[in-house]
């Protein structure tokens, strides 16, 4: 049952990714990308990471995709019909296919170590995923967390400065 579900969602994810890279209109690409994000959120739930699924939907499918769609519609890109919207298909296909085969071969030949940690599925269900993430983030990863806040501040200021007509 779980296997069938996995293959179904994986098929939808790959098909949506195909829409992202092949649709001529950017709006269609954006909708395919939203579909891929939802499929990945389903995988996160299957992998016992419900909080990650929630912020995947809120941050990616909510915030970032709304921003991208807003810019597409602000620049009025949906109506432009260019004859050629791609370039360099042959070499790009060779490069990406070679990369995919190398990656799949590494996955097939490699063996993941079976190190046992203390964040089991049982712990996630009994303690709660958000609490476990919070404990880790505010003890071990406190400095990267603060640096991420500075990064967001810089990004806000940079976006305003770049998008203004004259500073």
């Amino acid at each position, binding site marked *: 049952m779980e296997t069938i579900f996995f293959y179904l969602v994986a098929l939808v994810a790959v098909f949506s*990714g195909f829409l992202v890279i092949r649709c001529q209109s950017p709006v269609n690409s954006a909708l395919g990308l939203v579909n891929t994000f939802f499929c990945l959120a389903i995988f996160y739930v299957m992998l016992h990471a419900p909080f990650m699924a929630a912020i995947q939907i809120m941050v990616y499918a909510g915030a970032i995709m709304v921003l*991208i769609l807003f810019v597409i519609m602000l620049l009025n890109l949906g109506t432009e019909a260019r004859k050629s919207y791609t370039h360099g298909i042959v070499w790009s296909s060779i490069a990406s296919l070679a990369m995919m085969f190398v990656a799949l071969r590494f996955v097939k030949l490699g063996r993941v170590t079976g*190190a046992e940690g203390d964040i089991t599925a049982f712990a996630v269900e009994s303690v709660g995923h958000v609490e476990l993430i919070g404990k880790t983030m505010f003890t071990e990863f406190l400095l990267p967390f603060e640096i991420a806040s500075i990064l967001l501040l810089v990004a806000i200021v940079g976006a305003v400065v*770049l998008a203004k007509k004259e500073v």
Partner: protein
Amino acid sequence: MISVYHYMSLSAILFAMGTYGVLTRRNAIVIFMCIELMLNSVNLTFISLSSHLQSMDGQIFVFFVMTVAAAEAAVGLALMIAFYRNRDSIDVDDINLMKL
């Protein structure tokens, strides 16, 4: 039974598709969306390995990847608006001058 190898294979396929999109498309916003697709496939690898190794570190890393992606979206789209205002186009073939 679904193992971690299934998730990593799916992630490799999605990453290769994102690479293809980045290399072939002309529209800068679509290239940006393909980069988001690649970031998401890497996130899937992190979370599947984190779940397999029963550790929390991979999921914290995904959290920071999402932070960087949000910052990148804000700055990148502002750059595209500034570029469109100068050249009336969002085509990467038109981005060939450092200064007008």
